């Protein structure tokens, strides 16, 4: 299914599995939930090493706090952004329904900080600060990638939280740049409109599929399809594929870009596990994020 070239990279990913089922964040480094979750998703999407996928899901479950979050480090509970990743990794496994439920409840109770923008802030920043999405670190503002990942996770639940997802979609649309594309989540600072980047644009487009009409994101799709985003680096290539794939626009070119990004480890050295796994998952699924969750469309 994955082909010989990809198999080499899958073997590298599998080699980072620890005996307890967790995955090292990098070659020779310790394990971390984000690495474990992305590795589980990548392996599941390619139907590789199902025993490792099950073990990884179990490790993530063991790392889940009673309140439902999955923190990056036990000593850093505020860095709970891996919760959405764990939820995504658990979703295809009915045995993890209780973990999914608690993670979803934690996400729903912990949106990014939000507030009505005052006049002074209006002069400084462009986006609507009152909209609720999700953040990297609990207690801070909402940004594009954590909002997109939470939307992908919560949107795949059997009973998605429609109102929260609609507000998060409004947040992403509000953060879309005037000429298309997204960055980490700011549109304007003082008098300058900021510029888009490929990976953030891919995140937003992947999350907005089915929640926005194509005409409203057409400039962003054009940006992501354009030459400025056609770069063979791991996250840009992966999220270009997932972003376009969500709108039925990913093809062999996107897969080839992911493969080229994987090959570039000969130039850069081995990628950290989350980057390696995301790029592999995008290549193996040909940009179908749904494949990471067991879906086919």
């Amino acid at each position, binding site marked *: 299914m994955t082909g010989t070239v990809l198999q080499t990279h899958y073997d590298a990913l599998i080699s980072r599995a620890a005996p307890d089922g967790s995955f090292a*964040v*990098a070659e020779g*480094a*310790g394990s*971390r939930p*984000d690495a474990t979750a992305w590795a589980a998703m990548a392996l599941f999407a390619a139907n590789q090493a199902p025993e490792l996928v099950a073990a990884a899901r179990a490790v993530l479950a063991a790392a889940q706090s009673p309140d439902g979050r999955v923190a*990056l*480090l036990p*000593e*850093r509970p*505020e*860095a709970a*952004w891996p919760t959405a990743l764990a939820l995504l990794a658990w979703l295809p496994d009915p045995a993890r329904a209780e973990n999914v439920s608690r993670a979803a409840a934690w996400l729903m109770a912990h949106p990014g900080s939000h507030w009505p923008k005052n006049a002074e802030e209006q*002069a400084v920043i462009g986006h609507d600060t009152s909209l609720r999405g999700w*953040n*990297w*670190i609990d*207690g*801070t*503002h909402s*940004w594009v*990638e954590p909002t997109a990942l939470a939307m992908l996770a919560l949107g795949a639940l059997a009973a998605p939280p429609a109102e929260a997802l609609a507000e998060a979609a409004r947040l992403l649309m509000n953060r879309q740049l005037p000429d298309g594309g997204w*960055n*980490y989540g*700011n549109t304007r*600072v*003082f*008098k*300058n409109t*900021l*510029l888009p*980047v*490929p*990976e*953030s644009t891919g995140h937003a487009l992947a999350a907005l599929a089915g929640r926005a009409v194509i005409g409203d994101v057409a400039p962003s799709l054009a940006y992501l399809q354009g030459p*400025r985003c056609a*770069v063979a*680096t*791991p*996250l*840009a290539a992966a999220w270009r594929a997932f972003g376009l794939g969500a709108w039925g626009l990913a093809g062999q070119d996107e897969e080839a870009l992911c493969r080229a*990004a994987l090959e*570039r480890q000969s*130039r*850069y*050295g081995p*990628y*950290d596990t*989350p*980057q390696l796994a995301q790029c592999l998952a995008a290549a193996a699924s040909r940009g179908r994020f749904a494949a990471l969750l067991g879906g086919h469309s």
Partner: protein
Amino acid sequence: MNASDAEKPARGLTRRQAVKLAAAVGLAAAGGLTATSLWREQPEAEVFIAKAAGYDADLAGVVRRGLAELGVTPAEIAGKQVLVKPNLVEPHAGAGHINVHPRMVRAVAEAFLALGAGAVVVGEGAGHRRDAYLVLEESGLAEVLAEDRLAFYDLNNGPVARRPNAGGWSKLGDLWLPGRLLAADIVVSLAKMKTHHWAGVTLAMKNLFGVMPGVVYGWPKNVLHFAGIEPSILDINATVRPQFAIIDGIVGMDGDGPIMGDPVASGVVVLGRSAVAVDATACRVMGIDPAKVGYLQTADGRLGTIRAARIEQRGESPAAVRRDFALLDYVPAQRDLRLAP
């Protein structure tokens, strides 16, 4: 002068001690200071400024000369693991003035390798980008790293470890730092000479925001913004304590920095052992009073010195290469920073 010359005895003193004494005597003659205040007024940091007209110049030679002027010897560097942290905040096509030029990275690596460094690696945790390798490609650094076989570490994503906050200005508590940074013997903050819309200026001290791992602090490192940019700068510098600070001011940025400002051809490289003193000197080159930059004023006397009388300027004088950077009146952090003519 070469590196070994710097430590040659002169009448029982090293050359550097003799220079400091001469400077102190000069101050006494001019101001009639007492012996006690003479001691206080003697230089506490050395900062080297070199002219460099462009990135085609012999930048490795500039850095080597600067390190020699600072008294850096091969014995100090031999076998050490050096991590160079360039400012690569957010590359944009055609906007090379945002980031440290790749040839400056190469020059710094060459200089430390020439002094016998065991290894030089490059590490950055870009503030706005998740894809570090895209940052390398768009900044042009990827090619240089490949040609020079320099390893790159993405400081945002790799292993992290907790260290006590040695500063205590913010409420950040302990700081989480990249394991790859902590493994280095020598950290070099390699910054760009820029104005900044939140901090006034971004130089060697502010550049260290980029070592703070995004996995712990988010993108755009929102935790540090919530904790206060200036206290965070101070805490990070107090904790990381970079051994060297080097500023690429060959083409800097003024106005709405650190990303959306305009290029300024200042034609200088500034370096020293103290990030505080280097930043203060760079401010003077930019026509900015370092005492009016909040975090530099706070750092003065605690993390280093910003006082001209306590900084021994080597190479060019700041006044000789001063080129006033544009400051925006609608940006509060940039108001009233101008250095008197």
